[in-house]
């Protein structure tokens, strides 16, 4: 095969691709297990509510094997080096927003997300970006919650108005 020629000595097997293969296999098992443990209802039709899940689980298993195969052949594309800390900042911002949304309200929670995202892209310091995010989120809250009747949770800050 001509394809293998320009796949020069890469790390073989591709470990990340093997992890993906394993994840796909786990998904297959989870779907099959969940379907088997819940499919109690009487099933007259040959193709009932459990057919599709079993089929998809089977395909996931096949895709998992195929992925493992490609992992050993080194068929996955080259990947750039990735910085971890920006990811942690964004994920941290989203987690903070998720946890604080009800307690602290939309403006505070989303303001923190805004500042964390800006930080992930190298813009700081936080004592400057958090107020900017707070003001922006609060304006958004007024426009969408008051103006467009979207239900956005109100916290102490919003209740002042």
């Amino acid at each position, binding site marked *: 095969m001509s394809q293998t020629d320009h796949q020069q000595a890469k790390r073989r097997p591709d470990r990340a691709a093997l992890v993906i293969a394993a994840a796909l296999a786990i998904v297959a098992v989870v779907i099959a297990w*969940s379907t088997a443990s819940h*499919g109690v209802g009487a099933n007259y039709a040959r193709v009932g509510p459990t057919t599709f899940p079993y089929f998809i689980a089977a395909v996931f298993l096949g895709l998992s094997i195929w992925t493992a195969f490609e992992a050993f052949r080194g068929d996955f594309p080259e990947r750039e080096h990735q910085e971890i800390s920006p990811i942690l900042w964004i994920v941290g911002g989203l987690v903070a927003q998720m946890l604080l949304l009800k307690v602290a309200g939309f403006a505070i929670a989303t303001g923190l997300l805004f500042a964390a995202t800006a930080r*992930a892209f190298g813009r700081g310091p936080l004592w400057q970006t958090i107020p900017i995010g707070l003001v922006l989120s609060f304006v958004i809250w007024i426009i969408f919650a008051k103006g467009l009747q979207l239900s956005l949770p109100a916290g102490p800050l919003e209740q002042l108005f």
Partner: protein
Amino acid sequence: MDTFGLLAQGLLTALEPMNLLYALIGVTLGTAVGVLPGIGPALTVALLLPVTYKLDPAGSLIMFAGIYYGGMYGGSTTSILLNTPGESASIVTALEGNKMARAGRGGPALATAAIGSFVAGLIATIGLAFIAPTIVKMALSFGPAEYFALMILAFMTVSAAFGDSTLRGLTALFIGLGLGLIGIDLQTGQARLAFGIPDLLDGIEVTTLAVALFAIGEALSVAAGKSSSSTIQAVKGSVWMTREDWRRSWKPWLRGTAIGFPIGAMPAGGAEIGTFLSYSVEKQLAEKPEEFGHGAIEGVAGPEAANNASAAGTLVPLLTLGLPTTATAAIMLAGFQQFGLQPGPLLFATNPQLVWGLIASLLVANLMLLVLNLPLIGVWIKLLTIPTPWLYAGILTFATLGTIGANAAVSQVNVLGLFTLPVSFELGMLLAFGLLGYGLRRFGYPIAPVVVGLILGPMAEQQLRRALAISQGDLLILIGSPIAVILLLLAATAVLLPLYLRARGRGKVLAQLGASED
């Protein structure tokens, strides 16, 4: 001619002041998001769905279509001036367009892109108006078996036929299909894959998935990758095209339209395929092929026309069959469903005013875009100067805003048995899918098949089970009509042919075209 009458009636709807306003908002937003890197038409429509929930259906859909068209226009600006395509269909435009801009011919490049998009959009929209009634007539005879075959074809073309790996395309599709299983089975009321979590019984929201994959996945992947410093090419010299430019542009516009429209209409995947084809056709036919790679105007005119023609083309299966073949179309389908409308042949009969108003409004939107784009190009370029940190911080703010607004429910989560914390479940999903989107990008998996799989999967399953209920379980009904057989054969070809080509080392052509200029 009947179509003319319907189209004229549609124009009356489209020209109502409120609908004109919606169209204007749509094309303006669409152009803006097309210009901005990191946010495309699919994401924008997804973000707007919760906001438009209480607005007029016709107006909202007109706005969505305007965003789609506008995104196609705006994407070319970034490609030409910045060499970073704002959306995937503009990758080819960057090849020649950015070279032209570097050579001080950015103005004519933008002009040929805008006018080409207008010409293509105009012809393709009229094509849509004339083809739609024929397909509707044919589709009315379709039974569940034919619909099922059609959906299989769409699945295969969207995931496996193009892109650089059959495996990764299919994996992305099945992730979407798997997510589509979650929730209550519509026919038996049985809960599937809900794992006892009540929030999962309603299934995965298409908008949550799309917003997470596009906005959060993109933000994570841009933040984690090394920031490539790209410089904006200033538009020097005249914006207008010379006589020579016109002479060299008009044929590529028409050829691009002729290539793009059928590809968009055929359930053959996204708009980018037409642009690649048009580029190679123009390269073959060019008077001065040596100019290709150094800023040939044909290489901008053709693909840009193809790009817009495909966008109009994808509305053919969406409106007539209810079949989305791109991520944006999939989310527009979710938009229809939000208003209790199901696109398809019946919609033409039950709600002709809305359908024809939408089609006619595309003509209006197209004209607006020409006006918005040529003279106002300087305004759009200013958008490119927004610093990345603020841009992405803003995108994530709006992404979460849409999700919270659509699903404000809060669940009590017990933390380590110590205390309970009110947590927004939908934001948790958003985060989880955002990480999934990052992973997909990192390993070269396409995003669109996941979204299409989620929305089309349950529909395909229903059609299959309906077909088998009619035949009392006889699987032969699936190949019981010539149309179904042909569609299934096409679907098989869509998977097997690219596999064969790739094995012969020829599948790299598409991938290389996109990657040869990074």
